[in-house]
């Protein structure tokens, strides 16, 4: 059995977080999404893995090189669609194979359910089916796939995980895999619909918070680095090498902290928080339910709740993220979702900035004690 992981797409609905990396490389609980997919395959003994890369491919390749498993990489030159991506891997396929998106979480049990099947797809229930391919099933077989419908007939959606025989390539007429499935169904092929055990996607940036808290359940406790004796820890806490945690800091797991960070003294880190590498939390700062990527600096006396911070943000003292819900237009769709802030890479904020249900683009600069709300374009200077 082989597996093809599709990791070429940008994931544009997750902008501004996908400036320097594709969606599959976004860190969740300090590991890129694609690593969870690879883990699930390896747990099922599937070691012949091909990864299709495209958007910001160097970042993906560098990461794959670090893994123990030998992984074949193929390049999709232009990101035309999933079927086009699969065609890029055609020359590597000699056997029955699985196709998986590299940017969704899937557990090993789900893969165990589909790996013995030929021509099957994993399906799952989702409260907002309109963002996915909705699957109509009869007698355990796929009857129809409706891509991103306005009014979905069911809550059953495709996970984008399929089991195919090599002859699937003759059905790839368009650039999308669901079209090939429709063609297979039309020609009388049976495609089994198998319910996934645990599958999660992050469609919008704030979905990463849910995925993050889900993945944090699986971290292993480990304390490397230098942790002051007065630090209070509870629950599962992972602290990477070279990280210093100063006196009187309180950490309630599940929390993961990367390497070479500088935390505290007197910081509070509450559950469901991931902190990347080389992050600085200055004294008296509180962080909860957040995903802080690498190289971020958060000033003293800040309160960070329900926030996703991209790489290299520098936020001065008294920064607040204030969770609330308002309407935001993302990818042509108006959404209402409660979260504090989503900041792209390299956002800078002056002291006393409050982010309220805000998505700030890459390199946004916010000057002097502002409350910022809603969507801010890349590179904007807020005065």
């Amino acid at each position: 059995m082989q597996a093809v992981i599709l990791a070429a797409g940008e994931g544009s609905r997750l902008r501004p977080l996908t400036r320097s990396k594709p969606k599959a490389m976004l860190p969740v609980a300090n590991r890129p999404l694609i690593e969870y997919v690879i883990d699930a395959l390896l747990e099922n003994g599937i070691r012949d893995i091909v990864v299709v890369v495209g958007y910001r491919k160097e970042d993906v390749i560098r990461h794959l090189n670090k893994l123990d498993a030998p992984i074949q990489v193929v390049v999709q030159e232009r990101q035309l669609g999933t079927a086009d991506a699969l065609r890029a891997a055609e020359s590597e396929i000699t056997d029955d194979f699985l196709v998986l998106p590299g940017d969704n979480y899937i557990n090993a049990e789900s893969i165990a359910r589909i790996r013995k099947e030929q021509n099957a797809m994993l399906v799952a229930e989702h409260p907002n089916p309109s963002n996915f391919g909705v699957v109509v099933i009869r007698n355990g077989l796929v009857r129809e796939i409706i891509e991103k419908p306005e009014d979905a007939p069911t809550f059953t959606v495709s996970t984008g995980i399929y089991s195919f025989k090599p002859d699937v390539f003759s059905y790839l007429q368009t650039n999308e895999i669901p079209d090939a499935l429709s063609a297979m169904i039309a020609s009388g092929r049976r495609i089994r619909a198998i319910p996934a055990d645990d599958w999660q996607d992050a469609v919008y940036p704030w979905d990463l918070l849910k995925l993050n808290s889900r993945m944090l359940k699986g971290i292993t406790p480990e304390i490397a680095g230098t942790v002051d004796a007065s630090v209070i820890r509870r629950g599962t806490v992972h602290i990477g090498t070279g990280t210093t945690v100063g006196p009187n800091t309180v950490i309630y797991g599940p929390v993961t902290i990367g390497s070479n960070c500088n935390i505290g003294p007197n910081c509070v880190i509450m559950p469901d928080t991931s902190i990347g590498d080389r992050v600085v939390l200055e004294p008296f700062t509180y962080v909860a339910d957040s995903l802080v990527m690498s190289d971020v600096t958060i000033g003293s006396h800040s309160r960070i709740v329900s926030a996703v911070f991209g790489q290299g943000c520098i936020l001065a003292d008294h920064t607040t993220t204030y969770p609330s819900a308002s309407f935001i237009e993302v990818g042509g769709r108006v959404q209402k979702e409660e979260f504090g802030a989503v900041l792209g890479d390299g956002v800078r904020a002056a002291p006393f900035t409050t982010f309220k249900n805000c998505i700030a683009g890459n390199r946004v600069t916010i000057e002097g004690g502002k409350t910022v709300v809603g969507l801010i374009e890349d590179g904007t200077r807020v005065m």
Partner: protein
Amino acid sequence: MCGIVGYIGRRDATPILIQGLKRLEYRGYDSFGIATVGSAIEVYKKTGRISEGEAGAADLHGCTGIGHTRWATHGEPNDINAHPHTDCGEGIAVVHNGVIENYSELKRQLQGRGHTFRSETDTEVISHLIEENYDGDLLAAVNATLPLLEGSYAILAIAGETQQIVAARDASPLVLGVGDAEVFAASDMTPLLEYTERVIFLEDGDVADITPDHYTIYHDGQTVERPIELINWCVEDTRKGGFAHYMLKEIYEQPQSFYETIRAGINDRVRQMVMEAGEITLVACGTSYHTALAFKYLAESLCSIPVRVELGSEFKYFTPPLRGLVIAVSQSGETADTIAALKMAKSRNCPTLAITNMQGSTVTRIADETLLMRAGLEIGVAATKSYTAQLAALMQIVNLRCEGAFDDILSHAHLAIGDILLQDVREAVALCSKAEHVFFVGRGPFYPVSMEGALKMKEISYVHAEGYAAGELKHGPFALLTGETPVVAVCTPGPTYGVMASNIKEMKARKAPVIALGVAGDTELAEIVDIFIPIPNTHLLVQVLTASVALQLLAYHTACALQRDVDKPRNLAKSVTVE
């Protein structure tokens, strides 16, 4: 300037030797060969790349063997001149890295005594000399031979049917890798990383007698203990993975290697040495010379220390009067010219500091102190991540002399390097790949950046490129400007911005297409040039880095567009271990 490798143990030697030679190919790749102890000495050697000729080596038997990859110095690259070299009776085989300076005299004497030579190499004298002294004891025969040799050498010798390798070094590098009932030997530690992390750096004059279970090191006839050092480089460094070339992989590793070098900091002894220096002389070759020049501009303008930069190859023969700290900059730590210069500085009683990527390399043994850069293994012949890591080490010295004024800038610089890697340079590549000549110009620290940009361009794309201080262009090279000679100009805000902009206009007036590197958002500059490549608008130190990386990308993609062998450019080897 070749690579040698040896294996003795329980495994089949040939695949290990071939793999090891591939890792050493950066030291030379004219021809290669291996010899094993099978039923007798079995030899296979071939002109050309290892990947093209390795299949023929598959019939070699035995668990003991030696191998060599060559960069020709004595005798043209062909099958006969390739190592290993055997004696008249083909009972002894030798591989050698270095130069035997008195070989013609030795060869005449040996021929006079009836020895038949097959090759034009200096190395063959060693196998015949060992033959003369051999009576069943290889170690004794090698020991009797070494005093006759003048020059530099790292030698591995095998004989007859004995499971034994004798290794010797003098002024050429040789490293032993200690495994479990197996021992490896190589010119540097890169071939060993896959098998063991325990290495022994042999010293000049050492002779090692190696059997599968045991090794003994002798120095001046006495048994000596050499410490086993643990190497923390990972095998990942040796894998190209999904990248098209090692060079591209290494370009993308720069944010990490820069950060690691900054993070490693400077130890107290080096700190003291730097703080006490009244003036600094840097000795370097090639790319390292450019980093040294960039350091000169930065150190003189930011912390007012007088800095002199000398080419290693000139320094040895035309030594200037020396005062103050002497810093040798060499990625490999084995660059022959730099080593010679360092020895010269030591003999003048100057405090010496080595900046190198290779723990345990020759420069680290000679210099009083070492500042190690953390680039990890660099395989591409064109220096990329070692260049920025050298800058990291040198910028730390600047920072130290400025009392830590740039701490914050240096610890965040890797993010700006990451940013410039996202830059699309395709338009500029289209222009350069059609050109016969490309000029690179800049002022201040961007002058060495331009020289480095030009070096990268010519060494991997074979497009003729020259780097000039922008003001110098009018003193001659201007005559060469036409509509078909692109000029790459670095023009960033600062005292030279205005004069640089008017230089660019002068070039435009001669119809030369101009590719400008300027800070993001500089619309004025973008308007007067043909192609504008924005670099992040940050501190000067960081601009030096990002501009350099942008030029690496330009050279790399131009070479790819011209379908050059990026990782192994013609006629070049990574470390230049001959003068």
